[in-house]
């Protein structure tokens, strides 16, 4: 028996268990490969302080000499190119062909990647299904040469095998290009590569993205925010949220010589003075050697830590997207009538600070380019196409769409396992004028955006598809969604009022025609029907507020509902018409620090939901 027992390399383990990393079906595998490459590219650019320009190219690899249509093809070449800082030559093989190798695992800092598995796993998947190595071109600056590598992974040893390594000419001054050849399946719709890139564009308005589709089209997602998100910083763990076992381990591993020194040095927000205070309260000598603090003493320290009031962890380690950028992303990518975004103040789970951000896009805004002629044609079509019994009911049951992000990365699979989904279900949308069936997302033309930024996002699995359901996280999401919902409610009520007045008038106008015609038929055709209509119309006008309502409804040239196309609700309130694309975010277009000031005026409003909660 003993002779048959031997070490298993991570690579071997994941070869057999590739579903753990998101390579279970060919369609999902294709998405995962694109996702890993794009995430890596964006992380690299942001860490290098460069506004990302990313190009994604998806090509069909001809099989047996014949090029198949996209829906039938089973082999794809993925090329992702960025303008990032490039990778130094010596590191390239290990970054791309060694699992669990990376800069991100051993630190507490917000980034898209966490473990250092992603891109190498994608390469390994390609190697496994097509036998092709990963091709990398990287250049660190215009004065250095570009390097071309072909690498594979030695799955037994989890070490890179370099097939090709040469200097080449590259037309880009700087950046990295990764090419993977993998088996996959391309299909549009939910959880597709296309959707993934759409969602990337929503949450990353500072990214310029070019997508060359399999069909040979080129789609550009323009950069709408010209500044890089603030770089996240590395932090130490916060005392709240660590467990006793963790504390024991830290006590053992620390380089400090005294307990007080250890507390002050190894935790965030513990000053030397506070450290001494804690030691005193715990009844453990401040000067005792950390290694000697075990058992009861350690437990006392732990309990005191939890009981002491300590400042929330520093939040400059996090880089939330920001309300302004979320609004911009939603506004440009989703055609709605109402947008709102909320960034929660930072909170902590298990010692990790995190920020929840939520947004909503509601309604169906007609696309501008189609507006003039196409709309009238559509209207004409409506007239010749009356609805049959049972038709026209589907529209109302349309469920809203939830888009989820962790550190700006869209999460596409396992929605129902995700804390964001559960929080969205738990929010009583009915209070905000949106229908919702039990156990389902709210109804209506709505996109719900939820983003969690954290130094360590707790995923339910290695393939990073769903955020684990910690109470603290769930609570923050719920609070953010409630605030969004409340603003939506204000918008809907406001619109509802205007609409109902319009509808009142409209109803009578429509029905007067019918009633008068019916009267005419009843009277055997002997009736001055126009006169009757006129008389009834007069009554209708006088009963619905006369010409005042006409103005209110914007009958002098406004939209059909007497409302402008879209309103953006921001922290300041519910005003903010969208005039032009550039001014879309005007009401929220303030420097980041301005956010706090902006909150003040609506403080009384903000207090209400809090009061309801308690």
């Amino acid at each position: 028996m003993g002779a048959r027992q031997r070490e298993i390399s991570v690579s071997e383990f994941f070869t057999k268990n590739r579903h753990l990393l998101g390579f279970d079906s060919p369609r999902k595998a294709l998405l995962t490969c694109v996702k890993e490459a794009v995430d890596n590219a964006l992380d690299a650019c942001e860490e290098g302080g460069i506004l990302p320009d990313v190009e994604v190219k998806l090509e069909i690899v001809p099989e047996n000499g014949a090029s198949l249509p996209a829906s039938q093809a089973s082999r794809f070449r993925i090329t992702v190119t960025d303008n990032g800082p490039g990778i130094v030559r010596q590191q390239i093989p290990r970054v791309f062909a060694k699992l669990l190798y990376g800069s991100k695992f051993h630190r507490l800092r917000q980034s898209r990647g966490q473990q250092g598995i992603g891109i190498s796993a994608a390469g390994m998947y390609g190697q496994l299904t097509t036998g092709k190595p990963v091709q990398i071109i990287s250049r660190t600056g215009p004065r250095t040469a570009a390097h071309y590598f072909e690498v594979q992974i030695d799955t037994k040893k989890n070490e890179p095998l370099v097939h090709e390594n040469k200097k080449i000419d590259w037309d880009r001054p700087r950046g990295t290009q990764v090419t993977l050849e993998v088996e996959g399946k391309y299909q549009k719709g939910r959880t597709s590569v296309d959707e993934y890139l759409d969602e990337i564009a929503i949450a990353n308005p500072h990214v310029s993205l070019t997508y060359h589709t399999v069909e040979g089209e080129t789609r550009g997602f323009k950069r709408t925010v010209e500044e890089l998100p603030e770089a996240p910083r590395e932090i130490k763990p916060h005392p709240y949220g660590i467990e006793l076992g963790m504390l024991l381990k830290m006590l053992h591993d620390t380089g400090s010589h005294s307990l007080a020194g250890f507390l002050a040095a190894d935790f965030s927000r513990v000053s030397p003075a506070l450290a001494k205070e804690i030691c005193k309260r715990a009844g453990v000598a401040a000067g005792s050697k950390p290694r000697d603090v075990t058992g009861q003493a350690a437990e006392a320290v732990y309990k005191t830590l939890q009981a002491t009031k300590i400042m929330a962890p520093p939040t400059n380690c996090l880089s939330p997207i920001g309300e302004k950028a979320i609004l911009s992303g939603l506004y440009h990518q989703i055609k709605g009538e109402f947008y709102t975004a909320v960034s929660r103040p930072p909170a902590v789970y298990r010692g990790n600070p995190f920020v929840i951000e939520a947004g909503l896009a509601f309604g169906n805004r007609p696309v501008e380019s189609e507006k003039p002629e196409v709309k009238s044609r559509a209207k004409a079509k409506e007239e010749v196409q009356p609805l049959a019994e049972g038709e026209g009911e589907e529209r109302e049951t349309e469920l809203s769409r939830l888009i989820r992000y962790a550190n700006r990365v869209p999460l596409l699979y396992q929605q129902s396992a995700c804390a964001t989904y559960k929080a969205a279900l738990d929010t009583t949308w009915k209070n905000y004028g949106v229908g919702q069936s039990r156990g389902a997302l709210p109804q209506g033309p709505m996109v719900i955006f939820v983003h969690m930024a954290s130094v360590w996002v707790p995923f339910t699995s290695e393939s990073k598809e769903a955020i684990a359901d910690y109470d603290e996280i769930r609570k923050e999401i719920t609070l953010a969604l409630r605030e969004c919902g409340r603003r939506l409610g204000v918008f809907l009520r406001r619109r509802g009022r205007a609409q109902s007045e319009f509808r009142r008038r409209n109803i009578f106008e429509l029905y007067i025609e019918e009633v008068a015609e019916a009267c005419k038929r009843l009277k055997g055709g002997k009736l001055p029907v126009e006169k009757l209509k006129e008389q009834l119309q007069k009554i209708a006008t006088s009963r619905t507020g006369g010409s005042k309502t006409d103005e209110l409804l914007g009958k002098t040239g406004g939209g059909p509902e007497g409302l402008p196309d879209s309103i953006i609700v921001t922290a300041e309130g519910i005003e903010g018409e969208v005039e032009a694309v550039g001014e879309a975010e005007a009401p929220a277009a303030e420097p980041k620090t301005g956010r706090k000031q902006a909150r003040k005026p609506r403080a009384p409003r903000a207090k209400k939901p809090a009061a309801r909660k308690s």
Partner: protein
Amino acid sequence: MARAKAARKSTGGAEASTDPAPRPRKRKAAGGVETKLVGMADVVIAAAQRAKDPAFTIPIRALSNVSFNERKGMIEMGRKKQERTFFNVGMAKKFMQTMLVADALAELQRADLTTSLREIYYRAKHTIKNSQENTFDTQDESDPIIEDLEVSLAELREELHVRAENGGSIVGPLVLGDDGDRVDCSRLGKGGYSVPSIVEPEYLDIQKCTADFLLLVEKGTQWNRLSEDKFWKKYNCILLTGNGQPPRGVRRLARRLHEEKKLPVYVLVDNDPWGYYIYSVVKQGSINLAFESERMAIPKAKFIGLSSADPEAYKLPRNVGIKLNEKDVSRAKELLNYAWFQKKPWQLEIKRMLSSGLKYELDALANKDFQYLTKTYLPRKLKEQDWLD
């Protein structure tokens, strides 16, 4: 659609110009109903001239507006009325629909045709000009309006020329005259005669009846059993079924036989709250159509079974019972509160069912013997005069 609409308009025009004279038939003068319908247009025109909101008053058809007349033994409609006005957002559509139905009904009168509820719905349905809205979305919207018109114009559905489905069968020593045909209900095999929905004397003539009583059976299956076994021959009776809640035609025919031929009426239903209610509808009239009790109700009808006492009296095993569900229980409790179920034996009957927690179908009698109903149950019931009033 455009064509259909045009067609509709042109027929309207044709009506207006030619105004077909009613075919001579032995019916009540159609003029009365038509005048009333046209009167509705006059209401609108008059109101419009005086810049007033046109309104109709419609008696309320609900439990809140019915009372039980103990002396007559039937449910009567109260005086509560509601206004249906046009310039009210909640009622505007209904008002418009009411006018459209009135128009369709007037058309029916002029053409001297009868039609179904569903055809009225289709006739009045179209898409409103300059919108995507239909005048009616489903038949559920037009049916209550027809009932509203029946009540507010004080006209019977038959007089409005609207018929329901042929919902019942009759067999027995009875001869009817229908559209000039002689229908001998003792010579129609086991299928019997299908009761039309309009059975007023002008349409259906009772030429001969030698039966001793009338048995109204809830279920078609049990009626088939009795008919197949020629129960009516042996006991000289008429077998009538309405396949569930009996339609107006069946109720009206039973009433006519009861009234004109002095036949006692016995009602045989399942032992459940719905069975009790069917009996009460036959006996005292229904809440929704309380205004028709006067010509529908049979206050002397008797409840012959299935009684909650029968399982014990006839030794039905417990396992052929069905557990009362929540709906059954709440319905039974409602019945207990109805004024017309206040007689002691009835309170006892219903409470006994509730305390047993079981309901029994007529079909369950087959557990004993396929012909148990014909050969044992009904003969014993009739012999013992075991029924409830």
